[in-house]
Structures are given as structure tokens and as C-alpha cells.
């Protein structure tokens, strides 16, 4: 909000040096920007890793990363902006980058350019230049360009565009020292007080001057934005620029009238859309500059590595099998490596829990620590290796360039359900765990796609729901386990996709988001890049899910354990209702649970649950399952009087299965209704927290809780009732 006037009153070089000496806390802020796949992340890692490291921390928005380090006498803050193609406001990434540049005014932008594809990458640079922020161009991947016979005269290019350029090889760290030196120098240089831009031709220039005059009538407005840039954006009919004028300019109507007049005249003269006119001028200018600075020594044969690999991976018929195979491998690797680690962590926590009674006396604190805190936190940490490995796998797919290909291969299928090809990623990840699944929905460029995907992805049969389903299936369909499990898996996909389609047709009608995307050249991913990608997400999982799960598991533990049945010396229970409970309870644990708040709640809602064939025990387990789905099994264990401690876990499982099968209240119909309910109902708390974090609005969380609960209940009741009529 406080970006008023800063633009005009920039510090001069000398003052800034003094400032950085006297206030070492005021860092020099360097923004790293560029197209996706320009090797930006690599540069970021190298720069923030090579110099004395002060610490990386995620910025205000998760979409940009910040690293601090000292360089000479300067404290440098390096901000890695999301990769973008232009400075419009169609995608979240663009909005983040654009807002940052306008509001936070970095001291210099380093624009990372792919030297092998300069024409298109310079297109973004031209737009940065229009904003009037000091700019340095990094001619990255210069080795690749050289091997392709592309010779760039960096000095000449710098003269023509009036921007310093430095040749770099990001993944080898070559040229980065010089890049940093030039960037610091540029940031410290006295600021030119005009925003240089290319000449768009007489007609556009006239229009530009006229519109600036119009805008300048509101003197406070023109101090807030780089006016020069804003006017070009207005001529391009940029929605965000127009919105800013509408909201903040004193003479909105006059400006808009004049603007429409000017644009109409311009379009008549050229016989084309004003946006096209301007971008064609930009490209023409770039083309001219490149003609004077780039020589192509020898043409490389077209069939390069990317093309050859794509001939295979994007093959019309084999593309899909390859895609499924690659996904299968990522999946296998994740769970093959992750499960033993998960086991290790789980047994570690188990050991920790057994230690507690030696230190603490029996009672409230001991129970809180073992059953509340250790079980709860342990439950989250068990999934941590899986989440991290999955994130590493996805980072590899992303950094190699396969992700966009996967979207190419799957788009038609997802498009049927109104989704983008990239939606498959959140869906796929959610079959492991919905928490990272929802995080990965960030890959979706369009907000509508993203919301719909986040709303339905938790239907996937995740790593926590799967064992619950497996247990129920093993109990009721011992001879057809695989088949029933597979059907349930299909059902989860079916549910997610159909509901997505329904949302797309109702809540999110309107313009179809664009699919047009670049298929970047294949590149070998770098280890630091992948670790950073995956590490950050993994850390977010730990931090966010961990804290909330801790709180939630304490609450759930409390609901399941209190109030206690008080027994006086004669062994009489203290309340009347509990007498009846004790009568049908075989074990103390079970009657304690029945007496607890959760047990009472389960009994209270039993009449409602009966319509789906559930009794209060299932009710209590399902309520507990909102904390984390695997809790359903352990709660049922307690309700059936199987104490987890003392038995090896397999025995517990077998005992529970037998108890379920022998319960006269349950039939195969109940089991299927329960399976349907478990797949569809409210996502676990960790997922809901992640939804809140990603979509930023509580309304979506509430909506998700509400609709999934209704859907699950409705489907289970429908199935059970119809089943009763048909088979009952």
C-alpha cells in the first residue's frame, strides 16, 4: 500500500553507498526475472549459495524465493521472481512478478535470457525496460548457444538496447561473479529519470504522448506508477492497468473516453488490434537489434536431442503408455523408498511413546504426551518421507521439461472434464497424499482450474485412506480384495472428475482458460535446483501440517478420552447412562471411549447414520478420521476392544478384521457404503489447512467441508437404501 511516490524519489548512487555503510540492514535488492526455463533458478542457487550465506527464506508469497548474502560491503537480497512470458496479468505468476516490480521497486532487475532463443526472451526484457527499473541482461546458456553456432555480440547489443549484458552459464556458475558485479554497479549508478522505451512508430508515439498528458492531470496518480509503462499497457488494453486507472485516477471518465478515442484511431490507421500493433513493433525492434548483433555461423541439423526424445515420448500412440510408465516409476520409487523410511519414523515414535511412562507418572500428562502429542505428530511425520520423495520426483519431471509434455499427452482427457492437462499432477500426487497434491495445484496457470482441482483432488484414494479401505475390504471381501480395491480406486477418480465437471459447468462458467504453452527443450536437472524445489515444499508440509495436526490431535485425543468414567471405591460408576454402557462393553477402553465426548456425539448422530447402515462406532471412527484418515482404523480398534499395545500390529489388524466381520450390525452393504463414505467425506485437517493456505479464503474451506460431507452422506445413504431394496 505504501508505494506512493517512491518511484520518483529514488536515491542517487552516492547516497545509497553511504546508506549501505551506515545501515547494513538496508540490503541492495536484486530481482531475478525471466521466462520460465531460462535457467533462473539455477542462477539463484549459485548466487545465493556461493557467497557468504545469510539464509534463504520463503517470501511473503510462496511464489517467490528470497536469499540474502553479503557481497563486498553490500548486503544483497536476491529475489527470485516466478518465471513469466510477459508482464500482463493473466496468471498468478505474472501478477506476483508485476506487483512486486511496481510496489516494491527493486534496485535492479537481472533478466535471465536463454541465448539460444533470444528473440522471444528479449520480448520480456523490452517490457521490463518500459517500467524504468534498472536492468541487466544475463545471456544465459551461452555455451549452448555457441555449440549451436549462435554468436552474440554482447557489447553491441548493450549499446543498441542501452542495457548491460553479461554472458553466463548458469549450471556451471560461469560469468555469475561478473553478472553480480555489473548488477550492483547498475543499481548504484545515478538513476536516469526517464523510462526509456523503443520507438513504436509515429502514430503510437503520438497516442502515447496524448494519453500521458491525460493521465498527468491527476498529479498524485502519476507518482504511483511508472506512467510511461502504464500508458503502453493501456494502449495494449491491459485489464489490470485499466482497473488501476478506474480505481485510483481522479478523472477516470475523461481518461477512459480519451483512451478509447486514441485506441480507435490507432486501430483504424493500422487495420489491426492495438495490442498486436504494439507487440509487432516490439518484435520488429528486437529483430532489428538481433540482426546487428547475432550471427549464426552454422546451422545445426534440426534433429536435436529434444526433437528425437519427443518423437518417442510424444508419439501419437506411444505417448500415453510412456506417460503412464513414467508416472508409475515416480510412484514406485516414492513408495518403495518412502515406506521403509515411514516405518522407521513410525517405530521411532512408538519407541518414544513407550519411554514416556518411565519418565512421567500415569495420568493426564502422560496420556496427553503419548496419545495426543506423540501419536499426532508421529502421524504427520510418518508421511513426511513420502511427501518429500514425491516432491523430488515431481521436481525432476518439472526441471527436465517433461511436465509440459505430460500435459500435452493428457490434455484431451482432462479437457473432457473441463480441466487443464496439468491437472493430472495434483490428482496423481493426491493419490499419495492430498496435502502436497494441493500444493502442486500451483502448476495450474489459471485460477479457476486451480480452485476446481483443489476442491476435488482430495477425493483421490490417498496413502492414509488406502489402509482404511484395505482393512474394510479385507474384512468383508476377503476373496476379492484386489478387485474391490481397484473398483474403489476407479470410483475415486470418477468422483473427482465428475464433480470437477459439475463445478466447471456451474460455479466456474465463462471463458475457457488458455492452454497454449511452451514445450521447453529437455535439460538435465541440477541437484541444487531439485533439492530447493522439493525441500521448500517438504518444509512447508512439515511446518504447516505439523503445527495444526499437533493442535488437532490434542483436541481429538481430548474428545476421545474425556470425560473419564469415574469409579468410586465400590466399583460403581458415577453416572446412570454409563451403567448401560458398561453392560455392553467388553473392555474398559471401549466403555471409556463410549463415555467420552466423541462417543456421545457418535450416539447422538446414530439415527442419522443408520440411514447409511452405520452405527455409533463407525460414527465415532469417522469423526476421529477428520484429524487424519488412518485414525479411523485405530479408533475402530479401540471400539472393538483391541488394545494396540501388547500385540504386534499384524495381529491387531487381524483381530479388528474378525471383529468387524462378526459384528451382526454390519453387512457387505454396510461395508460398501462405508467405503464410499470414506472416499468422499471431509478431507483431513492437514488438507483443509493446506486449502486455506493455498486459496487464502476461508469460504472455500467451509465450502469443501460442507459439500464433501453432504456428498458422502448422500451417496452412502443412496447406495445403502437401494441396496437394501435390491438385496435386502
Amino acid at each position, binding site marked *: 500500500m505504501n508505494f506512493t511516490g517512491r518511484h520518483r524519489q529514488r536515491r542517487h548512487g552516492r547516497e545509497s553507498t553511504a546508506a549501505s555503510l551506515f545501515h547494513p540492514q538496508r540490503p541492495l535488492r536484486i530481482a531475478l526475472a525471466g521466462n520460465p526455463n531460462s535457467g533462473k533458478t539455477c542462477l539463484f542457487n549459485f548466487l545465493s549459495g556461493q557467497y557468504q550465506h545469510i539464509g534463504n527464506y520463503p517470501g511473503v508469497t510462496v511464489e517467490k524465493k528470497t536469499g540474502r548474502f553479503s557481497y563486498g560491503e553490500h548486503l544483497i537480497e536476491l529475489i527470485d521472481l516466478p518465471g513469466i*512470458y*510477459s508482464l*500482463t496479468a*493473466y496468471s498468478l505468476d505474472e501478477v506476483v512478478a508485476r506487483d512486486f516490480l511496481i510496489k516494491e521497486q527493486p534496485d535492479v532487475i537481472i533478466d535471465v535470457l536463454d541465448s*539460444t*532463443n533470444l*528473440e*522471444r526472451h528479449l*520480448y520480456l526484457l523490452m517490457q521490463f525496460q518500459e517500467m524504468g527499473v534498472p536492468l541487466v541482461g544475463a545471456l544465459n546458456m551461452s555455451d549452448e548457444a555457441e555449440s549451436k553456432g549462435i554468436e552474440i555480440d554482447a557489447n553491441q547489443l548493450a549499446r543498441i538496447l542501452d542495457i548491460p549484458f553479461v554472458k553466463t552459464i548458469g549450471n556451471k556458475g560461469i560469468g555469475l561473479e561478473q553478472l553480480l558485479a555489473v548488477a550492483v554497479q547498475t543499481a548504484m549508478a545515478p538513476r536516469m529519470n526517464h523510462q526509456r522505451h523503443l520507438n513504436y512508430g509515429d502514430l503510437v508515439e503520438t497516442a502515447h504522448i496524448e494519453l500521458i498528458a491525460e493521465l498527468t492531470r491527476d498529479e498524485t496518480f502519476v507518482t504511483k506508477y511508472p506512467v510511461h509503462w502504464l500508458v503502453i499497457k493501456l494502449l495494449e488494453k491491459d485489464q489490470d492497468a485499466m482497473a488501476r486507472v478506474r480505481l485510483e485516477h481522479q478523472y477516470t471518465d475523461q481518461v477512459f473516453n480519451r483512451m478509447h478515442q486514441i485506441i480507435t484511431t490507432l486501430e483504424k490507421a493500422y487495420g*489491426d*488490434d492495438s*495490442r*498486436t500493433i504494439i*507487440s*509487432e513493433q516490439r*518484435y520488429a525492434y528486437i529483430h532489428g537489434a538481433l540482426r546487428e548483433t547475432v550471427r549464426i555461423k552454422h546451422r545445426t541439423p534440426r534433429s536435436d536431442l*529434444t526433437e528425437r526424445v*519427443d518423437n518417442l515420448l*510424444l508419439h*501419437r*500412440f506411444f*505417448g*500415453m503408455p510412456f506417460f503412464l510408465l513414467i508416472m508409475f516409476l515416480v510412484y514406485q520409487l516414492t513408495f518403495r523408498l518412502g515406506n521403509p523410511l515411514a516405518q522407521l519414523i513410525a517405530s521411532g515414535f512408538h519407541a518414544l511413546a513407550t519411554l514416556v511412562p518411565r519418565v512421567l507418572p500415569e495420568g493426564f500428562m502422560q496420556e496427553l504426551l503419548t496419545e495426543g502429542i506423540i501419536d499426532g505428530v508421529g502421524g504427520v511425520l510418518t508421511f513426511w518421507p513420502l511427501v518429500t520423495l514425491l516432491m523430488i520426483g515431481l521436481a525432476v519431471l518439472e526441471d527436465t521439461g517433461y511436465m*509440459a509434455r505430460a*500435459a*500435452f*499427452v493428457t*490434455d*484431451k482427457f482432462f*479437457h473432457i472434464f473441463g480441466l487443464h*492437462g496439468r491437472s493430472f499432477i495434483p490428482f496423481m500426487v493426491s493419490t499419495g497424499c492430498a496435502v502436497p497434491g494441493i500444493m502442486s495445484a500451483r502448476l495450474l496457470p489459471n485460477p479457476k482450474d486451480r480452485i476446481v482441482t483443489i476442491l476435488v483432488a482430495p477425493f483421490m484414494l490417498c496413502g492414509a485412506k488406502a489402509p482404511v479401505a484395505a482393512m474394510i475390504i479385507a474384512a468383508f471381501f476377503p476373496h476379492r480384495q484386489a478387485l474391490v480395491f481397484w473398483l474403489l480406486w476407479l470410483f475415486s477418480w470418477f468422483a473427482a472428475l465428475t464433480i470437477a465437471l459439475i463445478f466447471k459447468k456451474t460455479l466456474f462458467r465463462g*471463458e*475457457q*482458460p*488458455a*492452454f*497454449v*504453452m*511452451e*514445450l*521447453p*527443450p529437455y535439460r538435465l536437472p541440477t541437484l541444487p535446483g531439485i533439492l530447493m524445489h522439493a525441500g521448500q515444499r517438504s518444509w512447508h508440509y512439515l511446518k504447516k501440517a505439523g503445527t495444526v495436526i499437533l493442535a488437532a490431535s490434542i483436541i481429538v485425543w481430548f474428545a476421545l478420552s474425556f470425560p473419564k468414567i469415574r469409579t468410586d471405591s465400590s466399583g460403581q460408576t458415577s453416572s446412570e447412562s454409563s451403567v448401560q454402557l458398561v453392560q455392553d462393553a467388553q473392555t474398559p477402553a471401549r466403555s471409556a471411549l463410549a463415555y467420552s465426548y466423541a462417543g456421545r456425539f457418535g450416539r447422538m448422530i446414530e439415527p442419522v447414520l443408520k440411514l447409511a447402515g452405520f452405527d455409533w462406532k463407525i460414527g465415532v471412527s469417522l469423526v476421529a478420521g477428520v484429524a487424519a484418515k488412518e485414525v479411523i482404523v485405530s479408533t475402530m480398534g479401540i471400539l472393538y476392544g483391541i488394545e494396540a499395545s501388547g500385540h504386534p500390529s499384524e495381529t491387531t489388524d487381524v483381530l479388528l478384521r474378525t471383529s468387524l466381520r462378526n459384528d451382526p450390525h454390519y453387512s457387505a452393504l454396510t461395508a460398501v457404503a462405508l467405503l464410499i463414505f470414506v472416499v468422499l467425506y471431509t478431507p483431513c485437517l492437514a488438507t483443509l489447512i493446506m486449502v486455506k493456505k493455498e486459496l487464502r479464503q476461508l469460504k472455500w474451506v467451509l465450502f469443501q467441508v460442507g459439500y464433501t460431507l453432504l456428498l458422502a452422506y448422500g451417496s452412502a445413504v443412496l447406495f445403502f437404501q437401494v441396496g437394501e431394496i435390491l438385496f435386502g
Partner: protein
Amino acid sequence: MTKTISPILLSQVPTGNCFTIRRVLARGEVGQRLIDFGFIKKRTGRVIREALLKDPIEIELGSTLISLRRSEAALVEVEPVE
């Protein structure tokens, strides 16, 4: 669209064939993306392949590979190049 002299749409260019861009008819987001990727008149490209159900398609423009849906390609006027 079926007049003999008039240009065809990018969505109608057979796989493997080259084309020269005449005009981008798309507005809004699709239009913006196409411009970002260098869909500018007089530039020449090639349709490289199509996905399983003939949609989306992949094209090469300059040194950029771009994937787009057929419905989006139908918003670009091109001239076929032999």
C-alpha cells in the same frame, strides 16, 4: 473460409506442413499468450505433431516449441507454405 484464395486456419494445417502467419484473431488470454510466443504476422512455422485424439497439436515457431489446442489454433489465420 472455403474460398480458394482466402487463408486457412492454423487448425487446418496438416501435420508436418509449414505455414506463414497472417493474423491472430484470438483476443483475451489466448491472444496474449500467442503474442508472447511470437505469433506475429509473416513468421513461418511448422505443425510438428498431434496428440492421440488429434488434439492438442504441437507447432514449431522460430526456435520455440508450442503446444496448443485445436480450438486455439483455429484463432490464427495462416497461409499454407509448400
